[in-house]
């Protein structure tokens, strides 16, 4: 049995890289610094090691040949999931370019809330080390942060030392919208977070009023979404008084129509705080299971985020029309390739169309796909790169065991070659 230290995780989005993992053959155990997200993801057992065609075990070559044959005569294949490492995305985009496919990251509908705001007005954002050393006020909007990233507070807010604060325990945490599910946001000296709950669908109003208060605009009601305007005024005052406030949200948690306007309101509010003689930054949460990776690699390869089609011979981005589920359900697609190297539970949408799954070993299906090729997981079965939530830091993923499973890029490159 071997023990591997300083293991980076592609699962939690916050780039934890202090895991200690025991390796016994092909079974893994997180010995230290695990969490509710990372430990099960690392410890997921390998089941299938052989590809299947029509439910029968075949060689990798046969599975690749069958996948290529299925794609060969398609007019509009869709490549969904897009949950893999940088090299996997490179291969995926090469295959999409060759086959004229639509590429759609499975978390894009959530991420779209950020992209639409970014592409309309932009933002002022920060990264985790700046939070760790500078943040004196954290405003968490519409998300249960510790449910999203169990170790966020331990690593980035209640860190023992920071370069620019004498006492990190003096940091203030405010929740707006959702309440925290646990006590991770309580400071080491027992100070609990301020919590102002409201219904998800009231968040646009609440956030709009908060922004107005930051700007000093008069508000003629006493409460909004069940939150007293006086409380929002207090939050606005704290934001303006803080030296380096950080406003965080998870695009996917803003699960209501036109939530991009909420992201935009928050982002414009952050800009406005920066015009009031202090600093403030946004911090969009994300980065799980390759979603930032998909958008980054698609970004430099095509110019667009990972909801882009190649059916005209060149990339075309449409954050609505290129939705894989939409294309599958309204009959525009004629084949599905599902790529998911991280999460056995993230199975493809059920469809009558020819389906090729390049998925993490351990995946089970309600309806057996035409082709299933089990692949290794980046950061477990092979080296690779994955982006953290802040989109700046690409972590170097390690190979922890010798499973013999091919990588996503091995498989997708082989299918592309076979075309």
């Amino acid at each position, binding site marked *: 049995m071997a023990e591997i230290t*300083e293991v*980076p995780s592609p699962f939690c989005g916050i*780039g934890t*890289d*202090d895991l200690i993992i025991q390796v016994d053959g092909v079974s893994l155990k997180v010995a230290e610094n695990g969490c509710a997200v990372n430990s099960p993801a690392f410890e997921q057992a390998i089941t299938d090691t052989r590809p299947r065609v029509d439910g029968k075990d075949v060689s990798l070559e046969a599975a690749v040949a069958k996948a290529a044959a299925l794609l060969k005569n398609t007019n509009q294949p869709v490549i969904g999931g897009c949950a893999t490492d940088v*090299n996997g995305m*490179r291969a995926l985009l090469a295959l999409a*370019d*060759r086959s004229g496919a639509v590429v759609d990251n499975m978390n894009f509908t959530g991420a779209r809330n950020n992209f639409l705001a*970014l*592409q*309309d*007005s*932009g*933002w*002022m*954002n*920060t*990264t*985790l*080390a*700046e939070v*760790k*050393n*500078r943040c004196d006020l954290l405003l968490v909007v519409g998300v249960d942060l510790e449910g999203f990233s169990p170790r966020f507070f331990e*690593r*980035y807010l209640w860190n*023992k*030392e*920071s*370069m620019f604060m004498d006492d990190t325990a003096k940091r203030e945490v405010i929740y707006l919208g959702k309440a925290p599910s646990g006590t991770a946001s309580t400071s080491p000296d027992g100070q609990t977070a301020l919590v102002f709950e409201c219904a998800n669908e009231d968040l646009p109003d609440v956030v709009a009023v908060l922004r107005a208060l930051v700007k000093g605009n008069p508000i003629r009601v006493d409460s909004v979404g069940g939150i007293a305007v006086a409380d929002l005024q207090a939050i606005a005052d704290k934001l303006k008084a803080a*030296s*380096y406030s950080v406003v965080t949200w998870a695009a996917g948690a803003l699960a209501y129509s036109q939530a991009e306007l909420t992201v935009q309101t928050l982002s414009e509010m952050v800009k406005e705080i*920066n015009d009031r*003689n202090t*600093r403030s*930054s946004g911090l969009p949460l994300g980065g799980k299971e390759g979603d930032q990776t998909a958008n*980054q690699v698609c*970004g*430099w*390869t*095509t*110019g*667009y*985020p990972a909801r882009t089609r*190649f059916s*005209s*011979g*060149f*990339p*075309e*981005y449409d954050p609505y029309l290129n939705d894989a589920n939409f294309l599958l359900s309204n009959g525009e697609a004629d084949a599905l390739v599902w790529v998911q190297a991280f999460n056995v539970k993230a199975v493809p949408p059920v469809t009558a169309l020819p389906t090729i799954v390049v998925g993490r070993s351990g995946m089970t299906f309600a309806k057996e796909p035409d082709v299933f090729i089990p692949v290794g997981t980046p950061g477990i079965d092979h*080296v690779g*790169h994955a982006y953290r939530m802040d*989109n*700046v*830091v*690409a*972590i*170097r993923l390690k190979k922890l065991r010798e499973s013999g499973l091919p990588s996503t890029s091995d498989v997708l490159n082989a299918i592309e070659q076979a075309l």
Partner: protein
Amino acid sequence: MLIKLTGGAVYDPASGIDGAKQDIYIQDGRIVDKPTGDFQVDKEYDLKGKVVMSGAIDMHTHIGGGKGNIARTLLPEDHRADPVARTDITRSGCGHAMPSTFVTGYRYAEMGYTAGFEPAVLPINARQAHMEMADIPILDKGGYVLLGSDDYLLRMLTAKKDQKAINDYVAFTMQAAKAIGVKVVNPGGINAFKFNQRKLDLDEQNSHYGVTPREILKSLATAVKELGVTHPLHVHGCNLGVPGNMNTTLDTIQGIGGLPMHLTHIQFHSYGTEGDFKFSSGAAQIAEAVNKNKNITIDVGQILFGQTVTASGDNMRQHANHKHASPNKWVTMDIECDAGCGVVPFKYKDKNFVNALQWAIGLETFLLVDDPWRIFLTTDHPNGAPFTSYPHLIRLLMDRSFRNDVLSTIHPEAQKMTTLASIEREYSLQEIAIMTRAGAARLIGLQDRGGLSAGNWADITVYTDNADRQLMFEKPDYVFKDGELVVVDGKVVHTKWGTTHVVKPDFDASLEKDLQKYFDRFLTMKLGNFKISDDEITEDGRGSLTVHPLKGDVA
């Protein structure tokens, strides 16, 4: 295979050849002497009437790294206007202001360029820079790692660590980030912005550290020199874009005390405050200072009219400039106690007084600096203009009547504020070859590149001589990369992968003990996971590393 290029007019400043008719032989990717005895030429190109130069090298172009990808993501409408379709041998993508990686490689090659250097590699974002550059076909590449606003260096300066310790840290960072040079952007200013300082003059203290930009410049320039790194400290100075910043620039030149220093996109740092609009050209004074101080090299950062996007590490100045954003959307980021970035779309207009004068200031600078070995042709892609505008820029430099024709169309007040009309100089082909080839290779310290003598790698561009220099430089007849023919008549015919150029200066390994403590206490990554391994560049089977010697190395 032996290739012979027969009878072209060769412009090879590295060997002092200025248009002489010469044959060039290529074997195994390199230029070789004419073989002796009996020999068989496998492939001959008749280059009579053609101009032969080595492949062009862009020594400052933003082609890799996070801010570029933010710029791409920010501007879908710009990409839509310039879609690039897939062919049998090339990948699809997009073009214009911030092209996709594959299109970047194709379009550079189609203009005769065979190498490009990313000037702002944040240590913490270096992986991304290299991964993007790994997806740029044909070109060789490399990066200058960004220091000067990172908290570790500022803590060292506050603690009055000795120069040796600074040198070790610089060398460590160059190795960890796989760099060939060191850049500083708004020295200390990116850091000061995080403490809510909105400007930082050369002698103004960082409010937390008490360190000034002048001290940062001196310690880094000294480190680069003492480590033997060929490329001098690459400096994006204080006060970018601020009227009157020419004085800061002149002071920066004087203050460096004779140390080698490269001042980048100097056009953006050459502004006076004269005239009705309190905005004037400082190009003459800057050029005079450059001419006088032989330790100084510059690139221009020419602006050209049209839509582009500015992407810079200088979030302090980019934040201040966001009110000029066109379209009105912009991004700034504070990054990892390391640096920052700012992305602001710009539309430079010839009928806008400031833009028009910026255009003239850049050209004045080109024409008033005497020594083409110390000035380089850049638009600071994409900040002044996309790199695809280089042929137009070359025509402006080589063709006075064309230049004056364009000058007569810009904002009339700007015409009155520039001496451009009276400057007679026209660049020669040899001077263009110096700026874009031999000089760039020498400045960066590239061994066996940028020249056409035997022993050099066969990066070669062949043009048809044409009085219209824009047409000539837009569409080379042939481009060879490492001896392989990659472009014919301005179109990619074959693709390959270039190498990544680096240097590996030594450092005292005991530094890592202190760095490890610092990483564990304050950063978000283990030191061991921060360092980029050679494998990360080479493991996909396409990339390679080329390590260049340091000054003082025994060959």
